[in-house]
């Protein structure tokens, strides 16, 4: 009897939490399809006009494209740099992990605004003048996703016991490079894909650095959304909805992949 009563409290609590968390999402969603919505609980009439307008808006499509390619370039760069680095550190220099753990919490210790201040000061004059260009943004994005990449690659290496696999491959006559390519990479790949997707959704939602570093010159989806909020609420809703759908799809894939990985590890 106690159990059923407590479970009832928990149910109510969770229900309230979910309403609280989902209400803003729901409101945005409805607003994106609403024609008239003034003084009623639900919109009075519906329309697809905003969605249509969004896709006709050349600036939206451009911003979407800009976001996509900036994210892709940054993540490709991050993978190219982080894979060998994390591999070397985890396998050969475990003593450095303390330093890496420090780097991993830095995004909390150094929030975006602070990082932007430093980046602008460093690169707006002097030998490397890349302020306002995509280069500085890609560099900043590299730092943003660094914790996710490090954590993801490192965990994968540890889960597959990379050191032992590497030893085995070497004893069988493989060179370091060959062992890395034929054994380590294929085995950590699922974990790496997860951190890649996670990084991607983080970068897609990045606003602070983008706006402060290149806001005037380069429009990503977030910057564009910010500008649109003041103009047409309905159109902004439509944009926000497509953004959420994207995040939703990402989270679902991440969750599915994560579960699959866990199952394989436990087997």
């Amino acid at each position, binding site marked *: 009897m106690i159990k059923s009563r407590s479970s009832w409290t928990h149910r109510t*609590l969770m229900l309230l939490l979910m309403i609280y968390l989902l209400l803003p999402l729901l409101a945005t969603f409805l607003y994106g399809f609403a024609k008239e919505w003034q003084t009623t609980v639900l919109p009075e009439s519906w329309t697809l006009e905003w969605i249509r307008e969004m896709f006709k808006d050349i600036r939206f499509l451009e911003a979407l494209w800009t976001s996509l390619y900036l994210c892709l370039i940054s993540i490709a760069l991050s993978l190219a740099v982080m894979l060998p680095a994390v591999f070397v550190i985890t396998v050969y220099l475990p003593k450095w992990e303390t330093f890496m753990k420090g780097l991993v919490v830095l995004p909390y210790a150094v929030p975006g605004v602070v990082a932007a201040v430093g980046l602008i000061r460093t690169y707006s004059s002097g030998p490397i003048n890349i302020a306002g260009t995509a280069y500085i943004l890609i560099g900043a994005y590299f730092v943003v996703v660094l914790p996710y990449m490090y954590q993801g690659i490192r965990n994968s290496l540890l889960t597959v016991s990379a050191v032992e696999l590497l030893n085995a491959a070497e004893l069988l006559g493989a060179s370091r490079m060959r062992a890395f390519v034929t054994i380590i990479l294929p085995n950590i790949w699922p974990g790496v894909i997860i951190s890649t997707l996670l990084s991607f959704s983080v970068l897609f939602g990045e606003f602070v650095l983008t706006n402060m570093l290149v806001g005037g010159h380069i429009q990503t989806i977030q910057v564009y959304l910010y500008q649109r909020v003041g103009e047409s609420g309905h159109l902004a*809703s439509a944009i926000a909805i497509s953004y*959420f759908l994207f995040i939703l799809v990402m989270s679902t894939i991440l969750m599915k992949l994560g579960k699959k990985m866990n199952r394989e590890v436990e087997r």
Partner: protein
Amino acid sequence: MKARNRWMLLGLVPFALMVLAFQFAPLLSMLTGSISKSGASGFTFAHYDKIFHSAYYLKAIKNSLLIAVYSSLIGIIVGLLCAYSITRFTPRIRDRLLMLSNMTSNFAGVPLAFAYIILLGNNGVFTLLFKQWGWDIFSGFNLYSWTGLVLVYVYFQVPLALLLLYPSFYGIRDQWREAAALLGASRWQFWRTVGLPMLTPAIFGTLGILFANAMGAYATAYALVGGNYNLLAIRIGSLVAGDVVNQPELGSALAVLLALSTLLAVVLNHKMSKRSQQFTASYASNPNLKRSRSRGRRQGDAVQEGVNP
């Protein structure tokens, strides 16, 4: 490292370059900037002096601290209750709930501010509804004020607190609860004597992350109130990117102060997570507890789920 492994160090070169260029050089530049004279060479504490004698900047610092403290405290209380609640569900439902929380924790910054404007802004759906229904209690509410900001901040703190806290509830094993019950402790006594002490490091650690998260939050406030509300992060932004005046040195000094506060919070988190590891270490070596260990790993990931909005 063995001699014939030396060349492996080459793999670290690009990484070191990137981290130096985009993590450490900017931090250093910010530090030096905060103590160098504007427009001239030389070393000065004038910027800090100015900040601590300016009612305007002091107010910004105070506002930021208050908002961070309030939103973190509310966030941790709600998060704690919900985290406990979430562990009482079957794994299937639990995972769904966690996914939803995770998704909404991504929902911060501009879209979040926008959603709240739709709901509670000057022409927001609820605002108009309440007006029509004549609910006067809400007529004093203003989304673009301090209360409004706290409300929105709490929104992104709760899922983060939930995600960071719920794994530690699995550290409290049912067998302890049963053992305590057999020894004659009531539910409340168990939580007071064993449960909560076990959770304390996790709670303070999470509090540190929440505080840092709120202190550094920029996008949400910026999108909601623009430059109109006096917050530290907003002030820094406007001084550096310069809507009004461009004073990078003063901005650097403010940024150093902000970084100091968040750094302290993160150090607190670090200390606390070390302590909670001591608690968990005693049973992590037990091979039968595979489940709790894999959760431990997920906890590490969860710390990374939080994003500076």
